[in-house]
């Protein structure tokens, strides 16, 4: 819970975070090393200097640190684990559903565990998706279209194979598809960050929600134009929110456009932990005001009500969470106790 200055409590869902292992022991090749170092570059660019992590900490941080950063210090009530397999780059995978299930099992009410699929796996992949549903009752998947597999450098959502998987998702009740674009694609001569392959499936599968992670950055404009046409397209704000510290004006321009093209009900907060810690993101986001010139120009605003939707209520709606009931459920769990112990002592009444 984030407590506003007026005392109002805001339910927080971190819609996009990871429990990864990018350590040298797990790196399979130069691509794994390049991958975690590229992530660390993003971490360094956007993170306030006093909160920077050294590379070795960033490569592997473990369960205790994750729980502390997300729930004890980071205001988060529920965190959504988004797996990224990358088995061609990391020996055991970067963060698979199975790896993520360890922290989910330890804190069942604090995490939503998402799965994943890869259309290039064919029938075996469909079987794996059904197994994930049976074993973990997943309602969402993270899809990484730039995943390498053998000689393949990626896949498209419009391929016939992908369509079979989307049909299966519909059948199984896996309704939240978190899509992560770039930096490779098939075919390689096409724009690696292209978001246009989301348009057709979103029109065909109107029961499914297509949550485009980092709002399609670096193709924010193409994403906005597509999202304006399909109401089942959503923006995940991982990589958008951190601009708030690096370039507040740029962040404001991004938010004004997202509010203008998608409206306040289709934007989901995500930290992309461990690239960034939720605490500073949320502190700065809750204090942020849209500049008057952008309010006037775009006729949008980032009011406390809009922030509350973005920071938790929108994701709660997509994942069927009753926030009041859930808040009661986790009010005294082990994480809440850690949080109470970590909180500064209340001022003594005279």
């Amino acid at each position, binding site marked *: 819970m984030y407590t506003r200055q007026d005392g109002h409590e805001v339910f927080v869902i971190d819609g996009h975070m990871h429990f990864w292992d990018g350590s040298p022991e797990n790196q399979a090749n*130069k691509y794994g090393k390049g991958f975690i170092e590229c992530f660390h*570059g993003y971490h360094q660019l956007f993170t306030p200097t006093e909160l920077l992590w050294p590379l070795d900490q960033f490569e592997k941080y473990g369960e205790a640190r994750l729980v502390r950063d997300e729930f004890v210090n980071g205001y988060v009530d529920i965190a959504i684990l988004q797996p990224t397999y990358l088995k061609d780059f990391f020996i055991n995978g970067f963060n698979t559903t199975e790896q993520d299930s360890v922290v989910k099992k330890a804190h069942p009410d604090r995490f939503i565990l998402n799965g994943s699929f890869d259309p290039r796996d064919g029938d075996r992949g469909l079987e794996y998706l059904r197994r994930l549903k049976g074993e973990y009752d997943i309602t969402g998947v993270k899809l990484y279209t730039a995943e390498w597999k053998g000689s393949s450098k990626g896949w498209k959502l419009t391929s016939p194979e992908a369509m079979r998987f989307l049909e299966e998702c519909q059948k199984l009740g896996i309704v939240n598809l978190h899509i992560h674009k770039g930096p490779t694609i098939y075919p390689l001569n096409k724009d690696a*960050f292209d978001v246009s392959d989301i348009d057709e499936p979103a029109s065909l599968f109107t029961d499914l929600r297509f949550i485009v992670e980092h709002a399609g950055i670096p193709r924010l404009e193409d994403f906005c134009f597509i999202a304006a046409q399909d109401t089942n397209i959503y923006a995940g704000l991982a990589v958008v929110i951190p601009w708030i510290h690096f370039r507040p004006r740029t962040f404001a321009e991004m938010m004004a456009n997202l509010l203008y093209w998608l409206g306040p009900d289709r934007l989901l907060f995500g930290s992309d932990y461990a690239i960034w810690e939720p605490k500073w993101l949320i502190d700065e986001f809750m204090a942020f005001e849209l500049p008057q010139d952008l309010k006037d120009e775009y006729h949008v605003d980032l009011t406390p009500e809009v922030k509350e939707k973005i920071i938790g209520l929108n994701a709660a709606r997509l994942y069927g969470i009753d926030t009041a009931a859930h808040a009661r459920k986790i009010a005294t769990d082990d994480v809440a106790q850690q949080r109470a112990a970590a909180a500064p002592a209340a001022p003594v009444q005279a």
Partner: protein
Amino acid sequence: MIDERDVWARVGEVLDPELDRPLSALGFVECVEIRGAQVEVRLRLPTFWCAANFAFLMAADLRDRIGRAPGVERVTVRLMDHFAQDEIADAVNAGRPFSETFPGEADGELDELRLTFARKAFLVRQEQLMRALLRAGETPERLARLRAADLRADGDALLLRRAPEHAGEEHAGQQGAWRRLPSLARLLAMLVQKRAALGLPTVADDDPLFTTEAGVPLPPQRTAVMAFLGTARMVRLNGAFNTLLCTGLNRVQHGVEVDADALCAGGQEPESAGIPGERRAQA
């Protein structure tokens, strides 16, 4: 004898096809080494994972442009700290096309990709000129009516033909049929360059000056002009976001400092007109 300044001037003519800004100003070219009639140029992009197709275009364009400098017999491009550095450099230095660089992973060359981003760059450059004219007091309706002959460069300034209804009036000491708009000539030159790069026909004197990226004249209604500007603004903002992202990552990853604000304000110089399409450098 190769003139190093000449080589760098040519590096400055090569644009990042996505960001529409010169590689030299972006800080992506690490160094140029001249040995006799041979030039080696090192390209270091902000991250290990920068898109392979853009990296290929930049490497091929560098080799092509530098290769035309007087006295240069051979250009070797080296791509540093990139996931496909050897595949791309080997192919570019041998003059091989992209499709043969990644067998089975590409289904064509990079013409379409280059065209997609040339269209975006065109929208942005035209928007910058149109907004400058709006700030100077012209109306959206007038912009849609402008013919090519209504606007011409005069040194750093632009001369804009007055609307017929105002032609005889005196305006702040400037009498006559033309308004002088200081320092805007660059914006027109940049637009003309990009039109050529897009393969759009040269605008004849009586043709409408402002068009869509397909070359179709803008509709005359105020709302249509403003809608065009609204779309183009989003494309421009996205380009600025990506310029900040790329130059920022280059700073934290490789310590390269550039003036990102100037780059975002549209500080790019017009490049010499290029033909879209695969450049097969001479081997």
